[in-house]
Each structure stands twice: as C-alpha cells, then as structure tokens.
C-alpha cells in the first residue's frame, strides 16, 4: 500500500508541469546564490590574506622604538571567512571583521558589511541560506497543500475508502512521495556545495562532517514543514483554505516570530548603547590602577608593595624598570575591567537567546536558523569566540612588550628603544574556530527542540490520518 501510493503520487508530481517549473526556478536561484557567495567568499579571503600579511609587515618594520609606543601603535586582528559561510552567511554581514589591538583598550570589531550597504540590504540577500530557510519550505507548501484536499474535492476519497485502504499507510505513501524529491534536492545541493568548497583554494577548516550535520538539520526542518502542511491538508475542507493556512504558518514561523522575538529580546534584555558602554568602562578604569599615572593612590600602593617585596627602599634599586612594571599591572587591571563588561554583554545575550529558544516552540525556523549558523561558524558565538581570542592575544602582546621594556631599561628611562628585530619575535595571531563537537554540545538545546518538533509534528500528522 505504502509503495503503491508512493509510486502513484510520485508519477503525478512528475507529470505536473508546475512542479517541474517550481523546481527549476528554485534550482536556478540556488545556483545563482551559490555562485555569488562563492565569488564573495574568494574575494573576501583574498583581502583577508593581503591585509593580514600587510599588517604583519607594518608591525615588523617599526624600526627602533619604545615598546610602549609600539603598544599604542597597535596591530590588527582580521577575521577570516569560514568555508561553510558559503551555505549560511549567518550574522557575518552584521559583525565587524577587524579588531584594533592596542594598549589599554579592548576595541570592538569594526566595519560590518551591512553598515556599508543601502537600506535594501535589510530585506535580505540572495544567499543559499535564504533559499534553504525560506524558499524551499514555500516549495514544500506548494507541492503538498492539496495532497488530501484534492482527493476530497475530486471525489476520489470515497472511491479510496470503498477500496478499504489503511489510512496511515496511504498517508505515509503520500508523505514519502512528497519528501523524496525534497530529500534528493537537498542531498544534491549539499554534495555540490561540498565539491565547490573542497575545490576552493585555502578552504581552511572545511570538514565534510560539518556539512553532513548541516544537511541533516535542514532535512529535519523540511520534514517538520511537510508534516505541518499535510496535517493542515488533512484538516482543511478546501484546497484554497489549506493553502492559505499553510502560508500563514510559514509567515508566522519564518518572518513574524523571529522579528517579534528580536523586539521582545531587545526590550527585555537590552544592550547598553556604545557610548554608555564606553562610559561605564571609563568609570571603572578611573577607580583603579592607571599604568600612565604614577601619582594616583593605587600607584603609590603598588610602589610600596613592590619595594617591600624586593627589600629595597628606592624604585631605582629594583632589578627592572618599575614604569614598565606598573604599566603591565595597569594593563592587567584594565583587561579585567573589559572582561567584566563584556561578560555583562554576553549574559544579556544569553538571556536573549533563552528567549529565542522559548519562542522556538511556535517557530521551527528559530532552532534551525541557530543550528545552521552555529555549524557554519557564522553565528554570534563564533564571533564572540574570535573576539575573545583576539583579546587574549592583545593581553599577551602587551605582556610581551612591557616585559621587554621592564627587563631592558631602568626606572625613568622613557627614551629606551627596543631593537628593530625585536618586533618579529612576537608570535603571530592565529585563530582556530571551535570544533564541531563543541558546537553541537553548546547548541544541544536547539537540537532537542528540533527533534521534538519532528516527533510532535509527525505524531499530529499520523493521528489525524485516523479521521479520514
């Protein structure tokens, strides 16, 4: 019964001109999207390589210089583009790509692509994730909305009933006939993406394993949509109504709920404005040790403490340059302040993402979107991870510079110059994105929600078949 229904439905789908046209359109759109993204990916990576080596050359060729001047001069950390961003661009467009690493300050990533585009950019881009997340579910709706209603409208349902069919087997047959083309299309798409990616130069951290998990997430998403649409088709009396209802679900899940969620998240757990954030950091900094201010209370305390530790009575008798030592202590203190304030931001965001997750109950789009971005390393936490790594590197760099200053000069010797070849000894900044397993563990709740959606929607669909 299942097989017969499957064959009959598949034939019918194949013969339907509209289905073929719809598939062709989606394939063409996807082709264009992949092509554009691949070009952008290559272009951006080229720029990244150039900028990275140019910046390093500037750092290395500083000549003789005081290490603290070099610290103020600073260097840049550039964010690479990850291979799977070809499939899902995630929030990449909205976060900066370069971080200025300098003494005393943790800077935000600068220059997001969205800020350099017109208002049109806010409608969305023609990228593979747009097609995968929005258009293919729409395609599923168009394929499946009248699966059961048409049997009712054409009167074939009575005929079928008189044959003594088992409703659930019949329904499963229909389900698999509809799912099969979507499955094939998804697999083909992901295999093509994998081949394109492995043929790009410098494809970095690309792993087939991640791509495989990503394709599973999308297949799960499509199963949920198919179940919902078929459930509606079973319940509705007319095809037109089934279509309008399915579309309402689509609008709600993919457009309305995410937007509403973002509004609620913002009003419940707001971020400070950039200026407020800077002002808060400044306030904390003023209350603590300032490496540049030898006259402050904290500096005097540090002085006494260090003198006591080394058993000497004058800063000149210390075996190192106390100016540089104080600078390093100040640096450590400032790093703590930044860590505290960024931790607050992260807490606000994790509250926000809790809200997104609870709204995932009414929108399967949300867990899919978050999982997809996470696996592609284009989500917000991937950005945090990168900016934290850059901050660690900044702190290490400051220590490297201050230590050199402290060991090679004496107290008050501000005109000390480090050798021209010293800068090359600073290790290069290298960043490895999180491993797949770590990502899946942190996003376990999204996986569970997606799984629950699949099971519940399947259950609802199968139980409804009884009422045929």
């Amino acid at each position, binding site marked *: 019964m299942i097989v017969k229904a499957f064959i009959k439905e598949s034939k019918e789908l194949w013969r339907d001109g*509209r289905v073929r046209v719809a598939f062709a359109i989606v394939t063409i*759109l996807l082709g264009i999207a992949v092509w*554009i993204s691949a070009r952008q990916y290559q272009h951006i990576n080229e*720029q990244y390589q150039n*900028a990275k080596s*140019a*910046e390093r050359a*500037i750092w290395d060729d500083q000549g003789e210089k005081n290490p603290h001047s070099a610290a103020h*001069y600073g260097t*840049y950390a*550039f964010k690479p583009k990850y291979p799977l961003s070809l499939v899902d661009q995630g*929030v990449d467009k*909205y976060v900066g*790509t*370069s971080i200025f690493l300098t003494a005393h300050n943790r800077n*935000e990533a*600068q*220059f*997001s692509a*969205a*800020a*350099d*585009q*017109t*208002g049109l950019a*806010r*409608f*969305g*881009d*023609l990228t593979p994730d*747009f097609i995968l997340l*929005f*258009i293919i579910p729409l395609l599923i709706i168009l394929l499946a909305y*009248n699966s059961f209603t048409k049997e009712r409208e054409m009167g074939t349902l009575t005929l079928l009933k008189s044959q003594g069919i088992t409703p659930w087997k019949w329904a499963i047959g229909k389900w698999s006939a509809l799912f099969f083309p979507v499955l094939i299309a998804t697999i083909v798409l992901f295999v093509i993406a994998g081949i394109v990616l492995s043929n790009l130069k410098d494809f970095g951290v690309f792993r087939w394993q991640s791509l495989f998990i990503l394709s599973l997430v999308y297949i799960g998403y499509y199963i949920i949509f198919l179940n919902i649409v078929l459930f509606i088709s079973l319940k509705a009396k007319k*095809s*037109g109504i089934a*279509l*309008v209802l399915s*579309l*309402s679900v689509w609008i709600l899940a993919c*457009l309305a709920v*995410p*937007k*509403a969620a*973002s509004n609620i*998240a*913002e*009003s419940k757990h707001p971020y400070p*404005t*950039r*200026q*407020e954030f800077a*002002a808060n950091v400044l306030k904390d900094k003023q209350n603590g040790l300032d490496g540049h*201010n030898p*006259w*402050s209370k904290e500096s005097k305390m540090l002085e006494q403490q260090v003198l006591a530790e080394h058993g000497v009575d004058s800063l000149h008798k210390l075996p190192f340059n106390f100016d540089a030592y104080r600078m390093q202590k100040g640096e450590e203190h400032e790093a703590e302040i930044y860590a505290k304030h960024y931790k607050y931001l992260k807490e606000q965001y994790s509250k*926000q*993402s809790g809200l997104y997750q609870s709204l995932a109950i009414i929108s399967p789009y949300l867990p899919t979107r978050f999982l997809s971005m996470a696996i592609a390393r284009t989500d*917000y936490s991937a*950005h945090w991870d990168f900016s934290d790594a850059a901050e660690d590197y900044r702190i290490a760099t400051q220590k490297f510079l201050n230590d050199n200053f402290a060991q090679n000069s004496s107290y008050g010797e501000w005109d000390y110059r480090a050798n021209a070849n010293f800068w090359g000894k600073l290790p290069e900044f290298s960043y490895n994105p999180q491993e797949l397993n770590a990502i899946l563990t942190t996003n376990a709740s999204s996986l569970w929600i997606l799984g629950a959606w699949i099971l519940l929607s399947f259950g609802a669909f199968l139980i409804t078949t009884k009422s045929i």
Partner: protein
Amino acid sequence: MDPAFLWRFSYNHKIHLTMLPYNFKYELRLLLRSRWIQLLSVLLLVLFGFSTYNGSTKVEKRTNDISSAKKEVEETDQAMLKLLDSVERGMEVSASPWTIPTSPMAVGNYHPRVAAMEPKPMAFVSTGQADLFTHYVKPTVSGDDFALNFTEMTSPVQLLFGSFDLAFVIVYLLPLLIIAFTYNVLSSEKEQGSLRLLASQPISVRKWVFQKLILRFFWLSILVTLSLYIVFLVVGIQALDWLSVLSLLGLTLCYMLFWFALAFLVNLFVDSSAKNAVSLIMLWVIFVLLTPSVLNQTASTLYPMPSRTILISEMREHKAEATKKQDEILDNFLRDHPEYAINDSTQSRNFYHRYMASQKIVKEELEPIVGEYEDQLQKQQEWSRKLQWLSPAIVVQESLNQLAGTSTADYENYRRQVIEFAETWRTHLITFLYNNATFSQQDYASLPQFTYSNNTNNNVGFSSVVLLLIAAALLIFGFAVQGRSEKKGMLSH
C-alpha cells in the same frame, strides 16, 4: 451615432448604477456574515498595536539615551567649571595633570559635546537603519573622523531578524491579508456554481469582479484607517505630525490598491481558487522577497565597496609616515595656517602641537580614500533609487523609512553633519592650542554646540501617486484584455 447603441448604452449604464448600491449592501452583509470584517478588524488591531508599541518603545529608548547622555555632559561640565574656577584662583587640584581643563586639548578630549540625532515624530513607523546605527556620538579633538564608530552596539541576531515594526506589517503582512481576502472572489462563484446565475445578469463579469473588489478595498481601507487611528490613540504617540500621518495613510492605501489590482488581474485570468492563491503568493514572493535581495546583490556587485581592510593599511602607512616627519609637518602647518598662532608670543611647542598638525595631514591625505566609500554608497543608493520601481514593496519601505527619518540617506546626512561638527570643534580648540592660550571659564559659553537638522526632501507623495498610477494601469489593462477574451466565453473553461 446609432440610436440603438445609445439606448443600450444608457440602459446598461442605468442598470450598473442601480446595481452598485445593491452590490454594496450585499457585499457588506456577506462580509459580516462570513465574519471576515470581524476577523480582519481584530487582526489589524493586534498587528498595528503590537508593531506600533514596538516602534514607540524603541523611540522612547532612543530619546532617553540621548537625554541621559546630554545630562551627563551637563554634570561633567559643572565639574569642569568648578575645577577651572579652582585653578584660576590658584588652588591645588587633585586631577591628573593632563586632564585639567585649562588645556584646550583636555577640554576637547575629555569634555566632548553630544552630537545627537533626535528622532522624527514618525520614527516609530519604521526601524529602518535605526538598529544598525548609533544616535549620538561625542567627537573629540584628537580622534580620527573616519574612525568614529557610527554603528550601534546591538546583538547581530537582532539585526538579522529585523524588527516587527509598522513598516513590516504594511509592507509584508498587509498584502498577504489582501491576498487571503480576495483570491477567490470569482473562482468561488465558479466552484459553487453561482457563476452561471451571475452571467445571466446584465453586468459583465469583469465589472462585477471590479465592483466586488473595489468594495472590499473600500471596507479594508476603512478598517485600516480606523485601527491605525485607534492604535495611535491608545499607544499615545506624542506630538504626531498630522501631515505625516496623512501621507502614511495615503501611501498605505495606494500600496493596498496595487495589491487589489493584482488580485483583480489574477481573478480574471486564472481559474481555480487554489491556483489564484498560488499565483498571488508567487507575486508576493517576487515583489517582497526576491526583487529586493536581487537588487541589493547586483548593487553591491556593480558598485562594490572597496575593502575596509585596505583602508586600515593605508591609514596605518600614512600615520607612520606622518609620525616620522612630525617636526617638518608642524613647521609647514604653521606656515600654511598663520591664523592659528596669531597671538602666540611664547612659540613653545609640545606633543599636541605636532600631533594635531600630523592628524590634519593624515586626514587630508586619506580624504580621497574615505571619499571612495561615500561615492560607492552614493552610487548604490542612486541605483536602488532608480530600480526600486521594480517592486512596490521597496518603494513603500523606502518611503516609510524617509517618513520615519531612518533611511540610509538620513544616517549619511547625520554622519556628514557630525564630521562637520567635529571639524568645528577641533578648529575652535586648536586656535587656543596654537596660540598657547589657556581655556578659561569665560570661554565655556562660546564652545560650539551640535544641532541636527533633518533631511527635508522626502518623496512620499510622489511615491504614492506613482503607486496609484501603477494600480490604475493594472486595472485598465485587466479591463481591456479581459474585454477581448470575454467574447470567447467565460463559462466554457
């Protein structure tokens, strides 16, 4: 003219006139009995209410942020004046030496003014670019203009999902309500078999569909107007600019008419209810989702932004160069700008004299590169302005952004004004610096202040008229083409 034709014409005309009030009553009763009106009213109230509430909380936060920033500056200004007073009276002060405001550079760096972009009265209508860009900055004397960060600290997830604002309801959801409200006007008659009855009436099918749709448009317009009015009253938007509200309403109605016109065409040319719905949804996807993203993609492919990372490298090289030649730069600078040091008798030079002179040089050298970004953005905007007519959804979104003062052009305008102000601020204090004059309490009153002036050119009216014309053209097209095919028989297929 043939008298028989004239007679028939006037006869038909009379019947149409008598049909209209009848249809009007019938349609209203039908809509009320099918609970369409009730459902639509509730939906519209909920959607408009929620989105307006969201928009107004955002605006409220923006206003509060700005006023608290201004308040903070006022407070630190009081502290600064107190400190100046103590210094002027020769008292010992506990502040770090480089922050004492007798130095003009300390004033310029530690006591910047708030350059704020106040919201327009209609800002709640559309978030536009408001979540991406900041609404106040404090430019300092020694900062780089192009390094001023105009982006706001927002979670990028929020930027990705966008905001549930009134513009979203109007641009995205209203057409869908219209589609649900109109897709089966004719086809349901066909499917129920009442079309044959209708065909026997002395009115052509297209006129009948037209009347039916226009009546539905009329009722929906009333509902939209009323619910917007109620929502604005309940949410209590202050200082509403009624002219802007009228243009918002006009634009919305024209956009609705466009979708009704499309529904009219689809009802005439496609047959079954389900196929009508599919066709209309396809049109929705094309106009609302695909066209904007394709246009954006082509705009950024045709006029690509030069790499920002290259800007960084250029800036670094120029700065390194300038640092090496600081003394020379300062000499040239003072030769070129004798006005700065006109009253200086001491001729003493310190770090800031050199630094500010080099900053100016670096800024001038980088201007062509920075200008490139602005040019490309201008070109992209020009391009999207021309091609926006491919999709009424873009036209409406852009017009709403203009109405709300949250379009890209508004933020560009703000950025330009801030950079201009930063220059004023710098020049004002640099004059003190090169004259080696100290900043005193009397000088406080003449510190430059920033006032933002809104973009005045908006073309909401023009957009509305063009939308209206497009809708009219679609309707006329429907009449003309269907009139020809009608002879073949509407009932046959």
